[in-house]
């Protein structure tokens, strides 16, 4: 699939199907098979526009974050996800766009194109974006350096709160390339919103600091 067309042609989420999937599958999975230890849940946004910025270890990250927000917000929640991965096959593309409701992001945009146009438009509509600034799931349960896409987005929409969320345990439950889901309790630590500071380097440093501070709160047993 040519990447240029995929962005503009990503179909809108199928509302009813999505609600049924989250109520019937995702919420029971997150609540019963996993179980969430949520800290500072009061810092989660209660309305859009907002950006949830989380570390990324597992496909379960998105589902867990989506299940933590009130069900009434579901139509507003749009995870931003790699176009080259999620639109690779027809079935995955259907599932990612129609059921999960992702906004595909071109990780290698053509010169002159604006990969953040769709996320920005979604914020303008009052949506809540889920963003993984590490760019990929990477090695399980290890923090990687953040990509700066979030800074571009925050600069364009300085009014939108950027809420850092540290996730732990999901990469143990379902790491990259694994097929078996192993139940574990997972930690979700929500930080204070970080405001755009007017400077990209400074803003990125603040985000990374916020995430590392949340990670410090979390006691993780050895897993190697």
């Amino acid at each position, binding site marked *: 699939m040519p990447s240029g067309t995929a962005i503009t042609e990503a179909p809108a989420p199928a509302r009813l199907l999505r609600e049924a999937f989250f109520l019937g599958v995702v919420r029971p999975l997150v609540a019963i098979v996993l*179980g969430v*230890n949520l800290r500072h849940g009061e810092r989660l946004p209660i309305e859009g526009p907002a950006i949830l910025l989380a570390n990324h270890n597992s496909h379960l990250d998105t589902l867990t974050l989506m299940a933590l927000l009130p069900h009434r917000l579901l139509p507003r929640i749009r995870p931003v996800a790699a176009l080259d991965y999620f639109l690779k096959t027809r079935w995955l593309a259907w599932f990612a766009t129609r059921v999960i409701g992702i906004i595909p992001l071109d990780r290698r945009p053509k010169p002159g194109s604006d990969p953040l146009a769709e996320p920005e438009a979604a914020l303008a509509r009052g949506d809540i974006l889920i963003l993984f600034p590490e760019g990929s799931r990477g090695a*399980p349960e290890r923090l990687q350096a953040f990509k700066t896409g979030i800074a571009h987005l925050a600069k364009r929409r300085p009014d939108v709160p950027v809420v850092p969320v540290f996730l732990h*345990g999901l990469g*143990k439950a379902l*790491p990259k390339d*694994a097929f*078996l889901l*192993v*139940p*574990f*309790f997972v930690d979700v630590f929500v930080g204070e919103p970080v405001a755009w500071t007017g400077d990209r380097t400074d803003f990125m440093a603040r985000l990374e600091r916020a995430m590392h501070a949340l990670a410090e709160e979390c*006691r993780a*047993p*050895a*897993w*190697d």
Partner: protein
Amino acid sequence: MPDFDLPRPVLLTFIGIGAVLMAATLIEITARGRVPEDMRPRLKAWWGMVAIYGAAALIGRTASIVLIAFTSFLALKEYLTLIPTRRADRAVLLLAYLAIPLQFYWVAIGWYGMFIIFVPVYMLLLLPVPMLLIGETGGFLKAIGTLHWGLMTCVFSLGHAAYLLVLPPLPGAPAGGPGLLLFLLVLTEANDVAQYVWGKMFGRRKIIPKVSPKKTVEGLVGGVVTTAALAIALAPLLTPFDWPRALAAGIGVGIAGFFGDIAISAVKRDLGIKDTGALLPGHGGMLDRLDSLTYTAPLFFHAVWYGYY
């Protein structure tokens, strides 16, 4: 459809528990500020637990067994979340989880022989097999040792509570298996509370400061005496025990509960954590609440089994 009628003494005991909780709640409301701050979330969690387990008891035996199996799952999940595990062992952990539905199926069909050897023998032998096939020998002993201890504690030990439900009725004990289970649960939990309260009010001499600095001789003795008295009072209603046997059960639960409690305390000390989880506000995690029961359930069960079956 209920697959057995809840015996009247069990119903009466539940009403009694409700009355005690109601009294404690009223005390908490009138004396707020003078009672410990965590009493409120603790009581709230107690209400929730009594409501859920009471509802399961009302629905019937199968529902009760399923609920205990689910409790066992939560305990094992909490344990496996806390301990260090090896990445290579993901499938092994899944296999350990699979032991839960099987073990409680043996309970539900009343297959005692399988129930009593499945985890201690078959799972002991089976769990290492995938580990051996994966071939990861670094940390093998620690991995298999911690995993099997967890399975024995969270599934095998706690499963004994469920097996009480399928014991055939005894003459002179109209409350049957549900009566024995409720007797065990009330004594175990009351003992926890009594040891805590006695310790808080009169505790001076520490017993094992290295493991659990809050455990005192006064708390232990006061708790055991209280539990023994409660056992003698409840036994005629719920069990076939005469008073000397009830006394022995009360003392046994009091002492066994103490060791179950500090065994989990030692695990927490070893791992450097305060609570096993955050599932029960005010209490901590599931294992913080079930610690005593991991000792009392199998010991109580086998005392009954030896004496009456």
